[in-house]
């Protein structure tokens, strides 16, 4: 069950935010400055950043207007406010009209690209796709080996060259191979790069250009992997990568255990990029489609009531 897993994955978030909030918002205590300050702290420490600031301003405002006077109302207010910010944030993966669908995966160093790709490959393979991986991270030592190991474990194709090869050339080969082998989905791994490294960002641009030479609409889907433990710099990353290539969606990795994923609100707020997947654990099947309602409920520590929508499993 998706919801259960998400709730499990967000356990820490809930302990931090939800249980914190549950404690604060339990019962029907009247609001006061101290309580609002405590809520402010909880929102900030969940990496909500500027969104947290806005929320607190909103709470102050509503309190002064006597729209909310006690904790029960505040809880509903918060849920609505959070939900309003991510309601449209989920999205489906694009699909090529014919021929292989090319998914390009980018992100800063250590955000969890390669692991997310392995999970994504499993997800697609399980739904029946013929998947091929492309090892276009030719920079980091042993990145090609890492992806190769995943391909072997998953039993999917991989196109690779040696470390140090031109990543654009590897990508081109992979597209050629995918067409020839009638692959459904090609996932291209790229080297981690800080968005401030102009030369590496240009390299990314080149990879995309070269892929587009063989299949004009490709990459059909460009996913940016963000480490959910990253703070406000996540927004800058999304912005800067977006300048090189339109980002079609985010994978929020490492949301399990400790991460709070509060940055998701700020990113969606600021850039409107859909969050397509969330990484919820170490296992290959721990990748889920993003569902705004269960995400917010997960954060607030509230089980959903009857008639809850099942997140769109087909993406």
């Amino acid at each position: 069950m998706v919801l259960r897993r998400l709730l499990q994955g967000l356990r820490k978030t809930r302990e931090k935010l939800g249980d914190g909030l549950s404690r604060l918002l339990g019962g029907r205590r009247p609001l006061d400055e101290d309580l609002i300050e405590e809520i402010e702290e909880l929102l900030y420490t969940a990496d909500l950043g500027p969104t947290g600031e806005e929320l607190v301003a909103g709470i102050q405002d509503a309190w002064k207007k006597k729209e909310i006077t006690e904790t029960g109302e505040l809880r509903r207010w918060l849920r609505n406010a959070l939900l309003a910010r991510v309601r449209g944030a989920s999205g489906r993966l694009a699909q090529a009209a014919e021929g292989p669908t090319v998914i390009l995966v980018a992100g800063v160093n250590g955000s969890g690209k390669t692991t997310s790709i392995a999970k994504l490959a499993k997800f697609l393979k399980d739904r029946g796709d013929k998947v091929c991986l492309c090892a276009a991270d030719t920079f980091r030592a042993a990145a090609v080996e890492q992806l190769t190991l995943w391909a072997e474990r998953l039993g999917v194709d991989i196109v690779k060259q040696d470390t140090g090869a031109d990543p654009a050339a590897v990508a081109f080969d992979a597209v050629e191979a995918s067409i020839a082998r009638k692959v459904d989905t090609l996932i291209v791994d790229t080297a981690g790069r800080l968005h401030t490294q102009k030369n590496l960002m240009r390299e990314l641009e080149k990879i995309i250009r070269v892929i587009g030479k063989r299949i004009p609409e490709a990459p059909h889907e460009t996913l940016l992997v963000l480490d959910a433990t990253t703070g406000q710099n996540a927004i800058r990353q999304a912005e800067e990568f977006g300048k090189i290539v339109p980002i079609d969606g985010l994978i929020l990795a490492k949301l399990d255990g400790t991460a709070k994923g509060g940055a998701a609100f700020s990113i969606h707020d600021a850039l409107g990029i859909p969050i397509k997947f969330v990484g919820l654990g170490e296992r290959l099947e721990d990748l889920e489609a993003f569902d705004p309602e269960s995400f917010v409920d997960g954060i607030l520590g509230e089980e959903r009531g009857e008639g809850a929508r099942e997140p769109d499993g087909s993406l």
Partner: protein
Amino acid sequence: MFESLTSALGKAFQSLRGQRNLTEENIQEGLKAVRRALLEADVHFKVVKSFVNRVKESALGREVLQSVSPADQFVKICHDELVRLMGSETARIPVADQGPTVVMLAGLQGSGKTTTCAKLAHYVRKRKKKRPLLVAADLQRPAAVEQLRTLGRQLGIEVYEEGVDGNPPAVCERGIRHAFRNGHDFVILDTAGRLHVDDRLMKELEEVVKRCKPHAVVLVCDAMLGQDAVNSAGEFHRRLPLTGIVLTKLDGDTRGGAALSVREVTGCPVLFAGVGEKTEDLEEFHPDRMAGRILGMGDVVGLVERAQEVLDEKDAEKAAKKLLKGRFTFEDFLKQMQMVRKLGPLKKVLGMLPGMGQALEGVEIEDGHFARLEAMILSMTPLERRDPDRIDLSRRRRIAAGSGNELQAVHNLIKQFKQMRKMFGKMGKGGIGGGLSPEMLAGKGPRKGFRTPKGGAPFGSGRPGGRKRGRGF
């Protein structure tokens, strides 16, 4: 690296300029800006709160100095508090009295442990004349051992490994024994990245500590971490006898507030900062300099140190003298340029200068531009280099053709070289020059006073009017 925070504080202090006293009212804005800047910089909420309070108390309790402006005084107070927060002196890794020094690296997944291991090995070999051994004890991530092996091969540093199966604590133990036997005096243990809530893997680390008794246990910490930095670092600190921190990925544009939080929660000093992709991009962390940097005072000491490492002091002195006397030639210019290039990417070098952090924000500086200038100078005859005044149109055409540049580029180079010579000549006689402006370096077209005939072409650029993407600057 902390430019963004610097500029935010700069704005806050601007409102203080011209005020006579530090009062509860007039520091409100400043305090708010500091709070906001620190929160946006991902400094933990509680750390921010206590920091702001301390600054406030300190500011209000203090007598207003007549000699400095209240704004400067406020900056000083923030600076002192920041230094205090980050630890007031440079910390070091202890060295074992006997046998090899053992350092264990731990951290979350993707924090940059394996890369840091290699950088640290390179550092101790080059700077401390050690003979390091890397031990591959990350048996979790696919190909992590292979990664360390590759890095070791590239650096010519031995890697102890037992493949991908086995028990990490035992691998570490045998690695240390291997070091003893083979005369290594510095051992670096690379462990698997883990979530601090993963009890099994945390136990494994405790086991490594118990069996290997490392002299230093270093937490590798991503500078981009958000508020959760406090929790993960706190947990590592609770389970392991942490002695220090390495901050990675500080070369990005993160404001790096995690540095402050982690320092506060663990009480451990930040030892090193990872500042780039290359193996040598590991710097000692100096809290006082960093605080100065946060507040826009520049990392001059860092620049000087770096310069000493790569520059020939006598050469530099000679060139500076000539420059100030106005007897600067293209030969000197070329030499200087080559020296500066040795310092590393230009933007990084300039970012260390006082006040430049803010000025450089958003400015794209590419080192390719240097290569173009160099090509032009190398296309000159020795006579032309020594006496630029003799370069007439016909010579300029030849230089342009020889270096593969447009004629306009040569015009610009010579014109601006002469301006620079004149300007520095004046400086040598006690006048004040404008210095190199970031616009000029970035080729964005000169500021006032650097106008060139055709409407402001950048220094040495062949394309009047500025730069296009993808081609030098």
